């Protein structure tokens, strides 16, 4: 048995075991994608990275424990890089992935991407895929820029505004970009907000959006 410290919590684990075992034993959680107990621990997805005493980031699923090792499962760096990795993994997926219903909708990756707020692909990207013209340019208030992709842009392809029935993107920067887009095309932000409230009024993110839109309004005036 060796002693390891998971987020400061002292715990004894078997010599052969990995950091993941220790962390789980200590009652903490680390997300994993490629790891499959007893079958696959090649540490390829890097989602399970944690920080160890030396400050290095190591994959929990493959890293062996050692006496007195200190592990931090959610230090700032860890979260930042884990987020970046999830973004990278998503970047290699099709946009469809966001609406993928494989595994009965229990896709680990999608869950993670929600947890870590990297659901950032807006419907706009799909419009571009289909090469349909941008309604904002026509002055039609369209929620495309701030709505999660995955619907194949079924509305915008028919030249009718996106009403955000799939819910908003959870990434602040994307929201921001979207709002900038509205300002750029001179869309009345009240219209946008009204439209957004149609489906999202119960979601916490609507407040963020409100704030952004209000800013843009004041900015628009100035």
């Amino acid at each position, binding site marked *: 048995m060796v002693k390891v410290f998971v987020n400061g919590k002292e715990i004894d684990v078997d010599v052969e075991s990995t950091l993941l075992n220790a962390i789980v034993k200590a009652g903490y959680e680390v997300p994993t994608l490629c790891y499959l107990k007893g079958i696959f621990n090649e540490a390829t997805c890097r989602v399970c990275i944690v920080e160890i005493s030396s400050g290095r980031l190591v994959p929990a699923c493959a890293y062996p424990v050692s006496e007195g090792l200190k592990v931090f499962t959610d230090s700032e760096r860890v979260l930042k890089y884990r987020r970046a990795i999830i973004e990278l993994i998503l970047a290699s997926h099709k946009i469809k992935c966001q609406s993928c219903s494989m595994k009965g909708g229990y896709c680990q990756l999608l869950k993670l991407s929600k947890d870590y707020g990297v659901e950032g692909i807006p419907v706009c990207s799909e419009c571009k895929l289909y090469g349909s013209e941008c309604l904002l340019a026509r002055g039609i208030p369209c929620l495309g820029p701030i709505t999660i992709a995955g619907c194949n842009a079924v509305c915008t392809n028919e030249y009718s*505004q996106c009403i955000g029935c799939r819910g908003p993107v959870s990434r602040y920067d994307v929201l921001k970009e979207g709002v900038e887009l509205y300002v750029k095309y001179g869309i009345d932000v009240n219209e946008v907000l009204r439209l957004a409230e*149609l489906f999202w009024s119960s979601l916490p993110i609507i407040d963020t959006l409100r704030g952004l839109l209000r800013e843009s309004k004041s900015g628009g005036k100035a």
Partner: protein
Amino acid sequence: MSLSIQSKVDRVFGHLEVQVDLRDKDVKTKFVVMDDLRFFEHVVIGRKFTEVPYIVSRICGACSIAHFLASVNAVEDALKVEVSEDVMMLKEVMNKIQIAQNTVVHLYFLAILDYLNSRNLNELALSKPELVKSAIILNSLCLQATKLLAGRIVNPNTYVVGGFTKNLTKEVLEKTVKTLDKAEKVARELIKPIIDLDLPRLEDPEPHYVVLDPPTGYLSMSDYIVGSDGVRFRKSEYLNYISEGVSEYSTSKYCLYNGKTFFVGPRARLLAFSERLSGVSDIVGHVREELKNPFANLKAKAVELLYCIANSKEVLSSLKGRDLNIRTDVKVRAGEGVGVIEAPRGLLIHHYRLNDQGIITYANVITPTVMFSKHVEVATKSLSKKLLEEGVSLTEVEAKVGALVRAYDPCLVCAVHLEVRR
């Protein structure tokens, strides 16, 4: 013997219980809707007129297009928007195709089971595979056609107040026509078993009905409503004739036409305009004499199924030649408007009031199910009476009552969204 039937009616859109009380000599029946209230009329208040169709189309997954069109009509009426002839026709086509699709689902997946003594679709699929198969095919064909015109199979997104956003090109229309052509072939075969059904005999105790009254054509848009008593009135006056009431036992409202219970829907339409049914007159002949029988709603539906497909096919082929004028620009203004449409289950009324920003300040919606809810009670009552006199077992009665209710094809989720105004 137990003296009351409390029959949970399955194979309908929503949760319905029909109570037949036999304690004293005359039978009491109750049409008890058990879905929760869905205050849609409140939801839309304060929204912009452009959004209302989006919202109300989500009242019902089965007939979203009907609600959509009705509310669009209402808003256009309120804003005094004169949409072009083409748009009108296309709307009608959309509606017809949707009626056809609804009919397929109702007839072949829900209602017909009562007559082919199979408890559920699986059993039917085992006993009559080709029937179920072709029903499914027909359904999907109708859905395809819908998708082509309305953009989606539910909650259409190709139309905004003032006209179509989608550019309905020649290709699109041709595609639709092709699809409908396939559908028609299937339908012709498919409706035979319904037409030949041997329905339970039942004389309609209250043969009053209300239908939309188009100058020409069948299932066309119109501003006038006509009752079986010959009274014809503008849609905007509907409140003077059709009164809404609330029964304490049900979450849905009921309607009375001049204080009489009445029914709407295919049977009513057929009774009114059967002679206008071009192309399918031969079949109409079969069913016409039966139409007094509430059960005959099924046959009426079957007739409409074929007509809708055939007719919309013609219309589209006539349209696809020329270039369509599909947009009318909209000026926001205060106003009041009523939109009426013949939905799959009958007359559907949407009624809004807009202020000068185009914000909804008042909304009222009356769905077919609400209108014929009382009539269902009356009909079931007389049916169960009749059966009891014939001295059939209660279970039998229950089954028959269920079949009758199903023949109306009530949509409870539509019925209950209404806000209760006392």
